[in-house]
């Protein structure tokens, strides 16, 4: 029998090692696997390279992971938020590295990593500072730059419902980076709002097929990041 279900967020993240590359789903708070991130804070792995579109809000979730000095490098498209100075402060102090990637290039690099594509060409960022040092090549009269696929040791993502085989469906715009991160990571760890038997998700409506999912933890009532931030909460 296939059993990908873990009893706790702690056990699901227990082997994330120092120096690991960790993709974390979510666009802002939508889709952010906050319970898995907090488990990673408890676990304490250090010098992580974290891939996320942003750098978190307030002092919970991803911002708390950064504040806890567990992240050596962020790969993201938009490290500024209206309500967090955690990343900016560390960045200005030279205590965290930043690889800034245009959002669509970030998404495509992750998808390429998951699809076995080591590199591809894109017109995005040609002629801008973000293209500096990158190979430029002309196809059919237009300039493109080469970008590399991006893989990770682990992905932490959140979904609406998971079945026993690891098939996932999401909720609205909380889907965002999760399906491609699940593809790009060696070990994909999912916090699911509900866990059901195989066959309860319509095969036509599966968004992430179970082949991309390694571990599932049920988190039936996940915290809402913006409420924690509004309440001035911090983690741990």
């Amino acid at each position, binding site marked *: 029998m296939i059993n990908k279900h873990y009893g706790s967020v702690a056990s699901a993240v227990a082997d994330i090692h120092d120096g690991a590359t960790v993709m974390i789903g979510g*666009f*802002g*708070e*939508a*889709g952010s696997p906050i319970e898995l991130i907090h488990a990673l804070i408890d676990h304490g792995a250090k010098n992580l390279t974290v891939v996320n*579109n942003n750098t978190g809000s307030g002092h919970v979730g991803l911002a708390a992971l950064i504040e806890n000095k567990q992240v050596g490098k962020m790969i993201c*498209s*938009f*490290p*500024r938020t209206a309500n967090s100075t955690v*990343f*900016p402060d560390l*960045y*200005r102090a030279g205590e965290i590295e*930043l690889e*800034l*990637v*245009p*959002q*669509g*290039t*970030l*998404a*495509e690099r*992750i*998808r390429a990593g998951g699809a076995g594509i080591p590199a591809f060409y*894109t*017109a*995005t*960022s*040609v*002629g*801008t*500072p*973000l293209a500096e040092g990158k190979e430029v090549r002309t196809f059919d009269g237009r300039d493109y730059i080469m970008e590399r696929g991006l893989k990770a040791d682990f992905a932490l993502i959140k979904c609406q419902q998971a079945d026993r085989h690891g098939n996932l469906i*999401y*909720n*609205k*715009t*909380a*889907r*965002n*980076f*999760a*399906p*491609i991160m699940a593809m790009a990571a060696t070990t994909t760890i999912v916090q699911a709002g509900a866990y059901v038997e195989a066959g309860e998700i319509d095969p036509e409506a599966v*968004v992430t097929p179970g082949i991309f999912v390694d571990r599932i933890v049920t988190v039936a009532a996940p915290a*809402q*990041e*913006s409420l924690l931030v509004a309440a001035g909460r911090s983690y741990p």
Partner: protein
Amino acid sequence: MSTESVTGWNREAMAKRAALDIPNGAYVNLGIGIPEKVAQYVPEGREVIYHTENGLLGMGVAPEPGQEDPELINAGKKPVTTIPGAAFFHHADSFAMIRGQHIDICVLGAMQVAENGDLANWSTGAPDAIPAVGGAMDLVAGVKTIYVITQHCTKDGEPKLVSQCSYPLTGQGVVSRIYTDLAVIDVTAAGFEVIELAPGISFDYVQARTGTRLIAGKQLAA
């Protein structure tokens, strides 16, 4: 160079003017700020589908207070709604729509636009700034038509329409048309061409507030 006695278009009027150029059936991505307002002014009878790069086609208006869903947001991370016929998808598919030239129109803000269509709207290049680009570079490289809505000058009165951008670029030669508080200006092979002036605004007034030579469009003579 005082602008006190001459107001030109306000933010609403700028959005309203841009909205006239959104055709029926267009797939449109609206940037944060004034561009967001365009949606509410699209003329009646036109059905426009709004794309938000975080994975939604068929974005609707802002929800009623109390109806917000933290998992239904736009690229500016504000709560939105969906229209009937909406579709959700992941980020790689969303930017495939952008990069693959499937989005018809994107309306964006600007820090500077050069007469060759270069756009700078993501960074001042200040050494202590936290660089953040989001999806701006993808949008300008991929969307078929890029419109800019911006105040004609900065708060300090500096022209934003220039011969060459001094800020780091978002994209090269990407802007088609600019809607400012003073005029509607096309980017042409010959440079900036003023095709419409705000009420009470003269061509010379706009020229005086622009960092490069303007061309008077034929339309202005009418």
